[in-house]
């Protein structure tokens, strides 16, 4: 069975006065029906732009998909018109964002905001839409939904707002939910509530999730597959059991060593990755991680490594890795 969403060599650029910013530069992955794909990476690696490209939410005139395919149930969304995308967004694919306050309209009650998408997409009456909104609030476990529905975003806490965002996103039964750092702005105890809610709803509704995060802990617990992004490319992809047990790409290894308590607890000094992420205006030639990589050789500067399957289901893009793996 084909995957729900297949992203093939996606390239997205922003055309700025300083030049072309190749934010996403050849990204390929699948999301299976009912599964969670975790996309991890640091700021500016292109993980959010990947999701925005799927949704056609790049700022007009500046950002554009310049190559590759976004196959959703076999249809290439990259070629869809704005009109066609309207039927996809909300109905088929919806998205939640990091900052629930800025994604909600402060002058409309939350009920109006949830009902709006139901009415637009499903053409039901006002009354039906309101009932649906109450039902959705109940689904995301907001107490007293028939009272809460008339409240405004400022009356809710951060965790509640994120619940409302989820209710809104799921109100038209999408098959794919894209969650861009959904818990980053929340406290850990509230984060735990929201992550549990997303997992429960996923099981209940059978949807797929693209979970974008910088937190390795969150992907380890939520994802069925993990893709690590660096400088606009996926550098490693595998199931979490594999990637956390034996990460192969030097960047993934460095990332895990950077988080206190992931590798060795007793070690008092962290093995930090030296240097900083290169500028997307001038990606280095060859492997983009080589300037910060301890394994880098001259050959790393000449060719851009492909994503290769080093063992079943474990894809890595590094010239040095297949050799060390076969030698081991």
């Amino acid at each position, binding site marked *: 069975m084909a995957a729900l969403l297949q992203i093939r060599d996606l390239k997205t650029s922003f055309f700025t006065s300083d030049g072309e910013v190749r934010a996403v530069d050849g990204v390929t992955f699948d999301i299976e029906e009912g599964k969670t794909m975790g996309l991890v990476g640091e700021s500016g690696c292109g993980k959010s732009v990947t999701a925005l490209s799927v949704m056609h939410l790049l700022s007009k005139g500046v950002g554009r998909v310049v190559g590759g395919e976004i196959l959703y149930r076999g249809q290439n969304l990259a070629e869809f018109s704005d009109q066609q995308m309207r039927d996809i967004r909300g109905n088929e694919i919806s998205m939640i964002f990091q900052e629930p306050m800025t994604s909600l309209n402060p002058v409309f009650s939350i009920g109006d905001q949830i009902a709006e998408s139901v009415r637009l997409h499903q053409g039901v009456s006002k009354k039906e839409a309101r009932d649906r909104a109450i039902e959705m609030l109940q689904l995301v476990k907001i107490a007293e939904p028939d009272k809460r529905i008339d409240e405004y975003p400022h009356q809710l806490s951060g965790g509640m707002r994120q619940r409302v965002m989820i209710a809104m996103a799921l109100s038209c039964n999408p098959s794919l939910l894209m969650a861009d750092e959904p818990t980053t702005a929340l406290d850990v*105890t*509230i984060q*735990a509530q929201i992550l*549990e809610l997303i997992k429960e709803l996923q099981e209940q509704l059978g949807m797929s999730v693209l979970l974008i995060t910088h937190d390795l802990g969150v992907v*380890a617990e939520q994802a069925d597959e993990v893709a690590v992004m660096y400088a606009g490319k996926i550098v490693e992809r595998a199931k979490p*059991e594999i990637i956390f047990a034996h990460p192969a790409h030097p960047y993934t290894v460095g*990332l895990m060593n*950077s988080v206190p308590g992931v590798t060795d607890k007793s070690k008092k000094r962290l093995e930090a990755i030296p240097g900083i*992420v290169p500028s997307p205006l001038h990606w280095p030639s060859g492997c983009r991680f080589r300037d910060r990589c301890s394994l880098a050789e001259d050959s790393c500067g000449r060719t851009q490594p492909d994503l290769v399957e080093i063992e079943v289901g474990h894809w890595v893009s590094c010239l040095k890795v297949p050799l060390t793996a076969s030698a081991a």
Partner: protein
Amino acid sequence: MALLEINNLVKHFPISTGFFGRKTGDVKAVDGVSLSVEDGETLGLVGESGCGKSTLGRCLLRLIEPTSGEIVFEGEEITAMNFERMREMRRKMQIIFQDPYASLNPRMRVGEIIGEGLQIHGLATGADLKDHVMGLLEKVGLREEQYDRYPHEFSGGQRQRIGVARALALNAKFIVADEAVSALDVSIQAQILNLLQDLQDEFELTYFFISHDLRVVEHVSDRVAVMYLGKIVEIASADKIYSDGQHPYTRALLSAAPVPDPTRKVERTVLQGDVPSPINPPSGCSFHPRCPFAQKICSEEEPPLVQDGDHGVACHVFGPGATVKPN
């Protein structure tokens, strides 16, 4: 002897409403905190947003005036000091802020930012000053030629290094790090944590390390204090807190943190509800409405922080001060 000791520190922010600004209540940001920081140690302070941890950190330096309570630094009570005396004291007490974009003056050159303290205190001028600042730049891993640059030319991690250099300029002994690495990406965060550790070893610094990130706090701290709604609910050595935390809030907080290990399935106690408002905190133990172990006494009496050796817990049900059995 403790380097810093605070006794029953309180900070209430008055709320005024209406045209005449009548006082209608208080935000009880810090509500009776007592603790001590030993010379050369790192005391971590964890808690969720709004629990008062930043207010506490700022009160220690009197950047916010405490409402009441005592702060004793190197044996001297500082809450009553006048402006001049306090300025002298601040040479030894410095702070690093969370947001490296907001905490550096965009119109000043890096050299001026770092050297400003030295100038104000009249400790160095001219070439002397410049030499000193150059030395600091090198110490925090920046290059000498960056002396004349402006903050916007630096990345977040580099800016945080500037903030660290500024805190070090006056040979401070005690540094409050208020979410100093929270705004940084993990790979950069690790660099700054290492830097802070190296500097601590070299200059025998004492850190008061405030963070919401439990893993970071575990990594850097010798002792950890857990704060909830303006109060310390548990304090102990880092090992003890993380392996044998007693207070139900400590345990819930630890179990809520996602573990980057897919093979370990954690037993999670997901707390219900949100943190209550510090304007009208719940009666008794302020955690009781969310606590899975709450009993009758918990809503009636406030549990004191009871110490057993270096392990203090404020709970009626668990820890050395327990008076009732868990049901």
